[in-house]
Structure formats: C-alpha cells, structure tokens
C-alpha cells in the first residue's frame, strides 16, 4: 500500500504531465502501476496518471513499428501486425508475468522499472530498438534502448513516449528464458536475431547477428564473441558445437542457482535455439 495521502494528477497532454512533474519532485508517472506498487514506497507524494495521453498505440510507419508507452504487453501479444521484429517481441513478452499482469504491464513502465527479470530487454537490445522520451525541460530525445540503459539518467524524471522497432527483412530469431518452473519469473533471458543471407551457392548464412542476455551482472551482456564467430557462417551442427566455446557471461549466484550452473543453462538454451533455426539454412534449388 502507498501513502494514504497521495495526490493524483490527471493531465491530458504530455506537456501538462511534464509540468506537474517539474513542480512536484516526489511524484511519479503512473501507467499500469504494477512497478509502483511493488516499491510500497511511502515517499511517493503524488502520481501523474498517463492514461489520458495519446500514448496507447501499436502501428507500422514506414520501416518502423511504433509502440506507445502505455501499450500493455497483452496489446502487443494481440496485435495483428505480422512483421518479424514484432513477432520476436511478442514471443518475449507473451510469457512475462501472467495473463492478468500482462493486461496491466506497460512498455513505458517496464523501461523505467527495468527489473533484472524483465522479459523485455534482451529482445529490444537484439533488435536495436529505439525509444523516445521527454525530459523535464520538455525536449524530446531519441536513443537506442542500449544507450538508455547505459546513460546515467534519473529515469523517474523522464516521460517515455514510445518504443520504435525496425522492420527487418529476412529476420531469423529466437528468445529463451530460464525459469525454475514454466510459469515463473526468469532467472535470465536470452535473445538472438540475425539476417538470413543467401550465398552464391544457394546456401544461407547468418548475417549481422545480435545476441543479448539479461539477468547477468551489470544487467545485460552482448555475446560479441559468439556473434563474431557465427557471422557470415552457414549454421550446421558442427558450427553450433564450436560456437558454444564462445558463449560467456558473468552471473551472480543466488539461493537457487550457482553462477556456473546459470552459464551452463545459457549455453544449453543458446544451443537449443540455434538448432531450432537449422531448417532456415537448408540449401534451396534456386541459385
């Protein structure tokens, strides 16, 4: 439960919302509210509800998919858009929390809250997603999700507006989560995406791979060694075996799993994902 005397604000524009925030230091932006309630913080003096703002949409614009900050995970799962990058994101968020929670968890809230178990970030990082946000001085900035995580922003002071996914042709991908039981928060998340590039001999190779894992020390890690190893290669069983030697990440041990065990599971899930992609590399007749 939060402070009994908390004050609510219901702005109708982004400018109004930011003005309230600027004048009231101990207020937070409120979308779904699940992250705010988890804090049980008595220090929060006010909440700025964003539901009246025009930030609830999922749409294709040119070569991008734009997802408004107050769009819920369920809305992402139900969208009829079929672009591969959105399918990858659907795969990531469709197992987050539970159906009940997915009906409340929003994109914007997740970006600000960023818990280590979030199912969102490995996929957004892989896709090279961007986001736009409004600062207290009303300026709008755009950056990649990676930059957003790396910047030393006071995140509660920014109003997330939207996430922008690139539409990528010939995208192949997989998303994996390691959990104790099927319906559980993940210990870590793994996401992989790449282009399927046709070679002269009619074979397909991996191009521009991106591999990210979250739930590790310092929140996320890009598996650059593995990326370099498989880039421009045709995937087969031998390559997958070899690639495992290039998978490395630093985990923190917890009461359930040791760091070594987590790394072992990361390799296992990575191998499983690559093997699932094998049919994409079968040589076709047209050359």
């Amino acid at each position: 439960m939060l402070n009994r005397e908390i004050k609510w604000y219901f702005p109708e524009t982004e400018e109004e919302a930011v003005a309230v925030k600027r004048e009231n230091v101990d207020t937070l932006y409120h979308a779904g509210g699940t992250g705010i309630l988890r804090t049980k913080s008595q220090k929060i003096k006010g909440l700025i509800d964003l539901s009246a703002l025009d930030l609830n949409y999922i749409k294709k614009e040119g070569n991008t998919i734009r997802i408004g900050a107050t769009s819920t995970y369920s809305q992402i799962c139900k969208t009829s858009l079929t672009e591969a990058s959105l399918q990858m994101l659907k795969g990531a968020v469709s197992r987050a929390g539970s159906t009940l929670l997915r009906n409340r968890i929003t994109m914007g809230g997740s970006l600000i809250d960023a818990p280590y178990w979030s199912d969102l970030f490995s996929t957004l990082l892989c896709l090279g997603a961007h986001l736009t946000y409004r600062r207290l001085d009303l300026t709008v900035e755009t950056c990649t999700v990676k930059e957003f995580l790396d910047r030393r922003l006071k995140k509660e002071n920014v109003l997330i507006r939207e996430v922008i996914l690139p539409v990528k042709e010939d995208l192949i991908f997989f998303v994996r989560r390691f959990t104790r039981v099927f319906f559980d928060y993940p210990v870590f998340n793994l996401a992989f995406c790449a282009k399927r590039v046709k070679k002269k001999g009619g074979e397909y190779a991996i191009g521009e791979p991106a591999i990210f894992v979250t739930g590790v020390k310092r929140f996320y890690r890009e598996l650059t060694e593995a990326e370099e190893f498989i880039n421009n290669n045709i995937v087969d069983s031998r390559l997958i075996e070899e690639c495992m030697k290039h998978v490395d990440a630093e985990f923190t041990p917890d009461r359930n799993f040791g760091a070594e065990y987590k790394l072992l599971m990361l390799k296992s899930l990575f191998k499983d994902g690559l093997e699932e992609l094998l049919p994409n590399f079968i040589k076709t007749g047209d050359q």
Partner: protein
Amino acid sequence: MNTLFTVNGRKVRLSLHPGQTLLRVLRDNGYTEVKCGCEEGECGSCTVLLDGEAVPSCQILAMSVRNREITTVKGLMDMDGTSVIPEAFAETGAVQCGFCTPGMVLSSYALLKGNPAPSEEEIKLALDGNICRCTGYIKIIEAVKLAAVRMGKK
C-alpha cells in the same frame, strides 16, 4: 474521501484513500466476493474485469480506474444473465475450498468472450495467473472446456 466508480454496471460512490488498491477499496465497500490472497499479483484470487479484461485488483491503484467498468464475479451473473461458467465448475468438480473460484471464473469468462473455442494450451495460458491450492488444474481446464461448449450452443 468518496469517489464515483462504475461497479457491476452501476454508478456507485466508494469511500477510499488515494493510495489504496482496487482490491482494498472493493472489499472495504462490501464487494467481498473479490478475494484477498497474496496481494503481490501472483495468485489471481482478487481478479476483476476491467472493461472486460481480467486484471489483478491488488496490483491496481483504485483512483487510476475510476472511469472504467469494473466487474466482479457477482456482476458477471447480472451482466450476462447466465451462470454457465460457475455451473461448469461445479459439475466438473473444479471447486474445493472455493477461494480461487471467483478469479478462475472471471479469467475464464474473459477468455471465452474473445475466444469461444480455446485449445487446452490457450486455456492454460489464460489461467496462468490464477492459482488453486486444492484441486490441481485438470478439473478446472475441463470446466472451461465444458463452459465453452455450452456458451457456444447458446
């Protein structure tokens, strides 16, 4: 303070303080069919429908939904004039202590409204936020399947 809400199709003035969850506000105002379980968003016993969508009322601040349609399991009966889902739960033996049942019924309703013939996998996914400590889930899944068949015939 008192604020106007729409609960089970009726405009009602509920007493609350602004930091309270929807679960607390509903129960304090007599809607005790909304059960209080974990208050962490894990168990689903506090499920209500918000504009027809199943949500955990313990994870929602009441003031943020004062303009939305809130439906509890009692309101569901009035809304559709039907008790197909609770009857299916009773007939298949999907109820023991009954504490999780209001949430189960509402999640099932939200599913069947949008997907009248769900697969077993879809039923499991729709109920993944509702935990039952007594029955196991086999009877509950049977109940949803039975309700789907009966609602399809109506």
